[in-house]
């Protein structure tokens, strides 16, 4: 029963979604819209699971003084501290806004900006022309990289057009192939789930 009930629910709702999209009556009843409202509601409850897990894991880290426990303490203080402030003065309140704009936003931007450093380091240490294919990949990458930035056109007139053609034609063609294949994979996965053949999401990796 522990597995049969979730499988039944999955199949019923999978078929309901198919009915809501393909059939006129399904669209008239607005089935997709209704189920999406349910998802919105259940998303709200999901946050509680996250808070419980974080509290349990990091609470134990602090309690047992595990290695690096001060980081766990920072996380708990930050999580409950911000929650308390936001509950007291709403998320749009001055302190919550100040914390968000002054701390969260720059940290998020800094994380994204790290990509520049990591790509630079990887360019030097990882990107090797070990094979003919890797050499072709590298040449194409350099043409596109410099061509899409203003410097390409400064170095050689018409470079930008070559890079743009590369993006529009061969890259698009390859990506379409991958996308079509992936979409078929999506479809096969959906079909396996609706038919109850795929059970990996219920634990273990076995099938029907």
């Amino acid at each position, binding site marked *: 029963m522990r597995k049969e009930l979730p499988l039944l629910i999955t199949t019923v709702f999978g078929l309901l979604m198919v009915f809501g999209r393909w059939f006129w009556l399904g669209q008239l009843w*607005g089935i*997709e*819209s209704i189920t*999406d*409202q349910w*998802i*919105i509601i259940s*998303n*709200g409850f999901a946050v509680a699971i996250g808070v419980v897990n974080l509290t349990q894991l990091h609470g134990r880290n602090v309690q047992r003084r595990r290695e690096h426990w001060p980081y766990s303490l920072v996380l708990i203080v930050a999580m409950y501290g911000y929650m308390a402030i936001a509950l007291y003065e*709403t998320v*749009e309140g001055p302190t919550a806004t100040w914390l*968000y*704009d002054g701390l*969260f*936003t*720059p*940290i*998020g*931007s800094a*994380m*994204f*900006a790290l990509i*520049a*450093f990591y*790509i*630079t*380091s990887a*360019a*030097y*240490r990882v*990107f*090797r*022309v070990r094979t003919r294919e890797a050499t072709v990949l*590298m040449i194409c990458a*350099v043409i596109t*990289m*410099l061509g*899409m*930035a*203003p*410097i390409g*056109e*400064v170095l050689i007139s018409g470079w*930008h057009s070559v890079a*743009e053609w590369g*993006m*529009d034609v061969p*890259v*698009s063609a390859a*990506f*379409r192939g991958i*996308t079509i294949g992936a979409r078929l994979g999506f479809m096969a996965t959906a079909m396996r789930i609706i038919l109850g053949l795929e059970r990996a999401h219920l634990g273990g990796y076995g099938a029907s």
Partner: protein
Amino acid sequence: MEEQTFWQKMMAIDRRIIYAILFVFVAIVMLNPIGLPIEISRDTEIYYNVVEELAETGEVLWLDAAFGPGSWGELGPMIEATLRHAFDRGVPVIGMAMWEQGGRMFATALNNVLEDPQYDHIEYGEDVVNLGFRPGGAGVVLRSATDDVYETFRGVDHDGNPLDDMPLAMQTERLHPDYVGHAVVYESGSPGGPVYVDYVHEPTGLEMSVGIIAMSVPGAKVYQDAGQYVGILPGATGCAQYELLIDHPGYAVMTQDVISLGMVFVTLLIILGNVGWLMTRQQAQ
């Protein structure tokens, strides 16, 4: 112990030295811009024309900030430039966010633009509204398209103010071609433009475009080729071109020299890394 050769030392260089060189390099170019010429690409022109066409029809432009603070550097200036362009040409704008932090991203962009005295005449509620974020991601977009914008956003905007006092929000009953002229999604991940393709463009026929971070541009091209995206504003480079087209060079234009010379720096590192690798391999043989 055998002494290391020059190339062996080069290949074993501490990555922190590379980080430091990059930091110094970027800082120097930032402080001393060389002003490389910026050529306008076809994609940027198409995007520019979207707003120009809305100016002729007077239809609403719907913007979705589907990104967080991490992508502000690339996508924030795009929203600011689009708002300036729309306000200059009298195009009403409605903003929303599929991402939780997106509502604030849109609000920041709007505040930055409205600080300019040039836009003192812009009335919040009449010329622009920020609906903000509602939990549900794709579901919110679907409900806005098939049901009712007012109900989907529970009758309040990003700051919790009632939509009843905002004529623009009340007139725009749905995210549908009957009420909206064009939708633009500013995308840095998922959910992003494809949600609008599935739930808005395909079922209702509403035309849409995306402003997208540079590394995701190739993936978006597929949708443009299929006729689902009208325009793509590609990364900071596309935004810089757009800023020039609206005659308001801003943050994105400032970054172009850094991007260009950064690319040259990365190319040099790739060459140097490969030469070093070949030399050490040769020596080993």
